């Protein structure tokens, strides 16, 4: 498949509509609750997309990505609170720091495979969470940090949600483009080769260690940038909101529901699961505590058990990028690309 044809598919009409629609709807409908959902939806879809770069393309199933998310949030916030560094700069500082930590972690854990890698990332995220609670001189511990509401572009705080909608959308499109790049570039091909078979990839002369570290760095850095966005949007962070393991699982869940290892899958996953979660919470959350999560968990179970390829597999048409995945002769288990065969 030539590059051009592939790009035509990645930016087909259906996909463009899909990518633009929530942003347009949020701009048109001035409902605060709806806009909040759309912003969160774009935030988590983007985070899932960033995770998918590592988890989907490289097959490295991290369940500790919330550590990078929180590192981004804390770095920019602490720089802003203590040294009045603009969060725009803090965002890149956080991304760099997260990428660096990701590379260090990646080099330590690189021999680990399958569930062992996942568990090590989970332990890593817990370590970062405990540090963030106990190092209270720096992070104010579990009391969290409130960012003072002073609107201004350089402060990354806006009084209208429209700005947040646009920024979140730009993030989403940017990460989608990175995913498209992964799906069509040498780096992406190397990663996919590594995912399918490490031995074969090495035999073909791919330096699996460096491509893997590149994927970790990019994925961690992008996730950290979203952490900054989250902090500037909510204006409050504490270890329980940015470092909690539920975030990591949410990110992976969206990819899994949408279709792991595809460019559009994680975003579709976010479109379905985030509004579902918010809707259930607002509809049922007050009546009986916990009921909405029971329903949410059941929906998630059904999708994962009976639609292992994700929602994208329902839409396996050219415009959705199914053809590449369906290429014969490529081994993949039923959950898309998983582990090292």
């Amino acid at each position, binding site marked *: 498949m030539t590059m051009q044809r592939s790009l035509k598919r990645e930016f087909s009409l259906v996909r463009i509509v899909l990518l633009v629609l929530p942003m347009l709807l949020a701009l048109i409908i001035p409902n605060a609750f709806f806009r909040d959902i759309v912003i969160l939806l774009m935030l988590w879809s983007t985070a899932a997309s960033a995770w998918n770069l590592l988890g989907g393309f490289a097959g490295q199933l991290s369940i500790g990505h919330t550590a990078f998310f929180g590192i981004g949030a804390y770095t920019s916030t602490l720089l802003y609170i203590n040294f009045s560094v603009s969060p725009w700069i803090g965002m890149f500082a956080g991304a760099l720091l997260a990428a660096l930590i990701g590379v260090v972690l990646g080099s330590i854990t690189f021999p680990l495979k*399958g569930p062992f890698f*996942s568990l090590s990332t989970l332990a890593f995220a817990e370590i970062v969470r*405990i540090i963030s609670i106990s190092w209270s001189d720096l992070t104010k511990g579990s009391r969290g940090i409130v960012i003072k509401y002073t609107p201004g572009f350089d402060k990354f705080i806006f009084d209208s949600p429209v700005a947040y909608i646009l920024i979140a959308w730009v993030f989403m499109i940017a990460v989608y483009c990175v995913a498209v790049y992964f799906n069509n570039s040498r780096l992406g091909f190397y990663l996919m080769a590594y995912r399918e078979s490490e031995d074969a990839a090495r035999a073909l002369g791919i330096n699996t260690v460096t491509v893997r570290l590149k994927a970790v760095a990019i994925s961690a850095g992008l996730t950290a940038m979203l952490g900054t966005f989250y902090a500037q949007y909510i204006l409050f962070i504490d270890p329980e909101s940015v470092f909690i393991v539920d975030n990591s699982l949410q990110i*992976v869940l969206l990819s899994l529901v949408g279709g792991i290892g595809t460019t559009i899958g994680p975003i579709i996953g976010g479109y379905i699961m985030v509004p579902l979660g918010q809707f259930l919470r607002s509809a049922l959350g007050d009546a009986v*505590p*916990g009921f909405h*999560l029971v329903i949410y968990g059941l929906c998630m179970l059904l999708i994962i*058990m009976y639609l292992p390829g994700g929602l994208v597999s329902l839409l396996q048409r050219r415009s959705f990028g199914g053809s590449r995945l369906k290429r014969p002769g490529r081994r993949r288990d*039923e959950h898309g690309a998983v*582990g090292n065969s």
Partner: protein
Amino acid sequence: MSQLLVTGILLGGLYALISMGLNLIFGVLRIVNFAHGEFIMVSMYLAYWAYYYYKIDPYISAFVIAPLTFLFFMTVAKPFIVKLADSSHLGQVFITFGIGIVLQNLALMLFSADYRSVDTVYSKMQIALGEIQFSLARMVMFLLSLVFTVALYYYLKKSYMGKTIRATMQNRTVAMLMGIDTQKVYVFTFALGAAITAFAGGLLLPIFYVYPTIGFSFALIAFIVVILGGLGSIPGTLIGGFIIGLTEALSGYFISASMKQLVYFCIFILILVLRPAGLFGQRGTEELGVK
């Protein structure tokens, strides 16, 4: 000091007991069971209600709950285990995690977030040996963890079923070719693991409060213990439990109580990197079943 060591070892026995079931499910079957903590939570609630309504002592109801759990998984939940065994590891993580969410929130719905505990004669009872004091309930768990280790070890080593379980663990395809009904083995081992977990959960009730989210911390500890001790190694789980229990007691005393988790997560990553088969696991077994 000796008080610290005793506390640590008793805690280790407790951790070993709650990890034993996970060792069967994760260590032997390689099913990444994120609902392990919720299995413990559910059995604690069962024991609690048995005590609350029928005044059945947790130590007695555990002997009822465990066989019932076993039966439940052998019959009603059987298709589910078969499905789980065939999923990829990420699928398993999220299927079991989903079950965890559902169970946790069902508990929240039905029983509210209140902390509940039973007040039995022995739950507060302390035994003094010279200067060393320890609680009776923890001592019971410690002794039972020894009993379970020995029993399970010989069961897996000597009995026919144990041999088929180990054969299936080593190579599912070959085991099937040798005439072993691997599906039956999977269901049986899973049910056995769940039953042991339920038993341990019942015994936890006199020691800990029960509330819907109690499972998560237990599950993390169980994963650490199983990997530390070695996948599939029953004595390894016991030793792993002791190491984590002692680490917790000592680091809680010498560093600070909030840092004790940090210490064992660091141990966990170190052991994963340096010796992924665990301390007592057979070298190379960590690669088995990892697709």
